[in-house]
């Protein structure tokens, strides 16, 4: 069993900011059902171009859920430049640490944030650096889409 900090447990059991902002300014999606990890992140800006609200939906383990919750808390009030600098290590630190094997679960949050910012700025989707989140099945995106449709 994983050794989760109390903060991880708290953010898993009482996740903050679950949901989807319908009139979002930024939207980032990473992962897939096949990996067992996926994250959809939306944010809304205020007049000062700071993040007024952020919400997430996560399909994943406890670390993924807690990381998403932590990230959305952390970025509120930040400018996009500041939010872009939040690393997965920052997320893990905010949570009082993650087990080594679970660090990748917090990468997803950072990647989704990056994508959401790119979406807002209208930039072409950035090639995300860092670890590959999951390669459990070794299947193509098309197969996954089909699987989702068939069972959805």
């Amino acid at each position, binding site marked *: 069993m994983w050794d989760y900090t109390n903060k991880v447990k708290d953010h898993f059991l009482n996740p903050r900011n679950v949901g989807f902002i319908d009139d979002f300014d930024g939207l980032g999606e990473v992962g897939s059902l096949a990996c*067992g990890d996926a994250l959809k992140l939306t944010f809304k800006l205020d007049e000062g171009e700071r993040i007024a609200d952020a919400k997430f939906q996560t399909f994943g383990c*406890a670390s993924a859920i807690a990381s998403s919750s932590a990230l959305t808390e952390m970025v509120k009030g930040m400018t996009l430049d500041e939010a872009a600098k939040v690393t997965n290590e920052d997320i893990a630190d905010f949570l009082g640490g993650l087990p080594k094997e679970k660090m990748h679960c917090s990468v997803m949050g950072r990647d989704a944030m990056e994508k959401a910012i790119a979406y807002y700025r209208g930039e072409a989707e950035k090639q995300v650096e860092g670890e590959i989140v999951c390669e459990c099945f070794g*299947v193509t995106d098309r197969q996954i889409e089909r699987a*989702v449709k068939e*069972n*959805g």
Partner: protein
Amino acid sequence: MNPIYVDNNATTRVAPEVLEAMLPYFSDLYGNPSSMHTFGGSVGSKVRAAREQVAQLLGALPEEILFTSCGTESDSTAIYAAIRSNPEKKHIITTRVEHPAVKNLFEHLGKKGYRVTVVPVDRQGRLDLDTLYKNLSDDTAVVSVMWANNETGTIFPVEEIARKVRERGIVFHTDAVQAVGKMPITMADSAIDMLSLSGHKLHAPKGIGVLYVRKGTQFAPFLMGGHQEGGRRAGTENTASIIGMGRAAQLAMESMQDENTRVKALRDKLETELLNRVPHSMINGDPENRLPNTTSIAFEYVEGEAILLLMDQHGICASSGSACTSGSLEPSHVLRAMGVPFTAAHGSIRYSLSIYNTEEEIDFIIDKMPTIIERLRQMSPFWQR
């Protein structure tokens, strides 16, 4: 909080009767059965009695029973014995749904130059017997097929397979770690050459296993050294655990009936109610040929670890995939082999009951699960409300 333990395919409670039988052999009658003094020698007769008890559970002869340190060691011992006794044969057969104790060994042997046939299963987890039989050849050293699957509880027709394999003069081994104690087994009437079991799956302690080796089967020891177990398994006898294993074998015979009536009914109730109450849920595995204590249920669009941790908040202990593969979040190779869709494989929970479970416990689980799944689905980007 008293746990509600429905994770008995991972490990079981040592029966109080078993612990009681073991207790004198730690600090009081601690002699070595190989010793030349009464103090040690008298423990030897207890070890012999335990061997007879295990033989009785398996419908076997005492001299066909070898004590090992776990199911994994029994599996390794059997498979190495078969290939070392047939050094000229370079082909081995197993299935896609074996426990890592067999799976990883076969993969290793594959890298060492063995040709490995891995028999597939269908969507219900049933073996493709045609593929198995078609691949039997004069070059085949051993066929190893588990008796019952640890994740789904699916029972395989190993008696029938063993007969066909024996006709070809090939050694047949079965990993019966999940089957023994849950269904009647009579090795005297069987064509199975070697059978593995693990004590801690049937209320004996962890760290004791058994390998059945049919009289006359060619054998080579895996653990070499002292002359214990008739020269077939070296290492000072784990006397307390062997004696506990014997008592557990006796208890298993007595509770077989309860397991197949009351426990089975509890399992069926749990399963039926969960499928009724939780939309988008389904059984993994073959509902026809299945252990009486196991059900694997897929809850679509949610992830297993998260489910388990929420269950843990209520003190409910279960597994996603086998305990051996959770710890990494790779989806179970068993569910993948069966072609369980991704949406379902990740959210599969195994409930495995024992004679210690009560109806109140099952009702409690039935009550809590729908809320747990609903709560996680609310967070999931894939869930369409």
